[in-house]
């Protein structure tokens, strides 16, 4: 299917992935694992006071990072946003490292230097966000430029929310990448809120995808709660990018099934939206598809959930044993050691 602009209907999941039970199984496991890890973080560890500071989860929108993440090759650089835990899992980061990160322990990716989703690993080519929304977009554009510079076939994936598209950095970054025709895949999770701010207070256009033409790049809208649809759209985008045709914008329509962060009940969200979107839950949905197509039996699904719970229990135990950083580390690594 050719890249299309935003006025086309939601892309259906009818494509080769729809005939790939193995892919669906992998997707399901990551969806379930992400959900479980974040439920524990937000609803257990945070409430138990074992995690201090901000907690942002991707409940209800896991299909976006999982669907897109399964397309990325290991050498493709990823720039997650603060609700894309699935990307870390797909890149091989262990749940125990994630719990340790949230608890500020040395077992976390940042050794306690930073918290929650502010983590990354350059060896795994997954880049830590800074808090400033959309700041990663120009940075990702630079990484995409490097692919072109080196003449390799890598692509760069950058993820952001609807709210981030209001920022100057979003514009400058996407404009630079478009002018340079670099392999940048832009994936927007449009979960209809930026913190408490609804879309109509953020943008006057109907869709984030409507912004693609202003950069002369293709953009398309996809059902962000359909992991296979996200996978297919991302494949189109990645192919476009690797062919040297430049950036490609995907808008994933979804909903944030939680407050902005653990301290926010989201009382400003009208009740009907919670109900409406609960029915579109990406995990339930994929499971239904897999059962309907007889790709799995219910037992297998239950077994996935059970094994994930066991893995997560162990990971939390490990993380709680992980030591806090020693205060003597405070000034390490502000600069490259030798150069000080």
């Amino acid at each position, binding site marked *: 299917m050719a890249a299309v602009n935003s006025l086309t209907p939601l892309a259906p999941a009818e494509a080769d992935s729809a005939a790939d039970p193995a892919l669906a199984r992998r997707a399901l496991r990551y969806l379930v694992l992400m959900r479980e890890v974040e439920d524990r973080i937000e609803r257990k560890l945070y409430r138990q006071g074992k995690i*201090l*500071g*901000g907690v942002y989860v991707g409940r209800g929108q896991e299909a976006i990072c999982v669907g897109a993440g399964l397309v990325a090759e290991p050498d493709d650089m990823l720039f997650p946003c603060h609700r894309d835990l699935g990307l870390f899992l797909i890149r091989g980061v262990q749940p125990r490292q994630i719990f340790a990160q949230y608890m*500020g*322990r040395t077992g976390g990716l*940042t*050794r*306690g*230097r*930073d*918290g*929650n989703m*502010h983590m990354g690993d350059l060896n795994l080519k997954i880049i830590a966000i*800074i*808090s*400033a*929304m*959309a700041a990663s977009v120009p940075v990702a554009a630079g990484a995409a430029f490097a692919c072109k510079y080196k003449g390799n076939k890598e692509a760069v994936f950058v993820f952001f929310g609807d*709210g*981030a598209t*209001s*920022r*100057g*950095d979003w514009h400058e970054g996407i404009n630079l990448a478009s002018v340079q025709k670099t392999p940048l895949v832009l994936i927007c999770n449009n979960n209809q809120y*930026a*913190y*408490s*701010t609804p879309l109509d*207070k*953020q*943008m006057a256009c109907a869709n984030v995808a409507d912004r693609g033409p202003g950069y002369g790049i293709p953009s398309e809208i996809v059902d962000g709660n359909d992991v296979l649809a996200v996978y297919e759209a991302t494949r189109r985008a990645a192919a476009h990018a690797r062919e040297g045709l430049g950036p490609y914008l995907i808008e994933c329509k979804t909903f944030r099934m939680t407050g902005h962060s653990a301290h926010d009940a989201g009382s*400003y969200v009208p009740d009907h939206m919670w109900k409406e979107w609960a029915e579109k839950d990406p995990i339930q949905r994929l499971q239904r598809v897999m059962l309907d197509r007889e790709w799995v039996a219910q037992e297998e699904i239950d077994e996935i959930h059970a094994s994930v719970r066991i893995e997560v229990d162990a990971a939390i135990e490990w993380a709680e044993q992980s030591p*806090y*950083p*020693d*205060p003597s*580390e*405070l*000034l390490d690594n*502000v600069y490259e050691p030798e150069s000080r």
Partner: protein
Amino acid sequence: MSTTYLEAIREGLIEEMDRDPNVFLLGEDIGIYGGAFKMTAGMLDRFGEQRVVDTPISESAIIGAAIGASFAGLRPVAEIQFSDFISCGFDQIVNYAAKCRYRWNAPVPIVVRAPSGGGIHGGPYHSQNPEAWFVHTPGLKVIAPATAYDAKGLIKSAIRDNDPVIFFEHKALYRRIKEDLPTGEYTVPIGKARLHREGRHISVITYGSMVHAAAEAADQLNAEGISLEIIDLRTLLPLDEDTILASVRKTSKALIAHEACMTGGVGGEIAARITEKVFEYLDGPVVRVTAPDCPVPYSPPLEEAFLPNAAKIVEKARWLAKF
């Protein structure tokens, strides 16, 4: 009944909005949500969407729009959700707002409110103290209150001031400190420091959260017969040099404390002015107690080690007292 630092600022905002229909608020999530720290809770109902304006995530546009509205006679109060994000609107502050009056005689009566400071496990991007950048920018006024009384009186003065004011609110103080405020209306003058505590041996020149750390330190040191005089600057630009120098002339020793990291911080400027202007009065080196030169770490033991506190002030003061 006593008022918290946060409530005091809210009271100030409400009083000024009641007084002057040209005063309005803009920022992210300040409307129905009442702001990330609930500073503006209830204000949407009270003043309506026109005067409590939720904006897209665009700090440069928030500050720029405040400037433009002020050209048209309004008196905007912009909220930057965390002072860490003020760098996203930096050019509008340092190049646009700060220079209009000087260049072409156009006043820019805006207030930019920015919750700053650590101690809430916010990590590198929800804990910074960026005041020094703005203190190095002529044309701005920079305020950092330490008490509920001053917070209310200064936010009111800031709104009435005809120059651009950057107003740093220490987020760890929001709910931690409270006091009884006068029932009647009052303001606190911009550019005047406050003698927080009188003392004889060492002048502690400080502001924001460190005022309270200094007071704690003073209590401890009293027992040892070391008496600290605490100057709460309240305004960082313009600096109240007279009050600083008068105190040092009296005590002949100076300790400067701030939560921001040391190198290039406001403490350097203060130390320089003391050494340049009352050198003959000094009986010892001018010393600084600040955070070290690194980002604000997240993990509790690291943040604990990072933040200056009473104990670190006590230690330095003891050392200085021996001179």
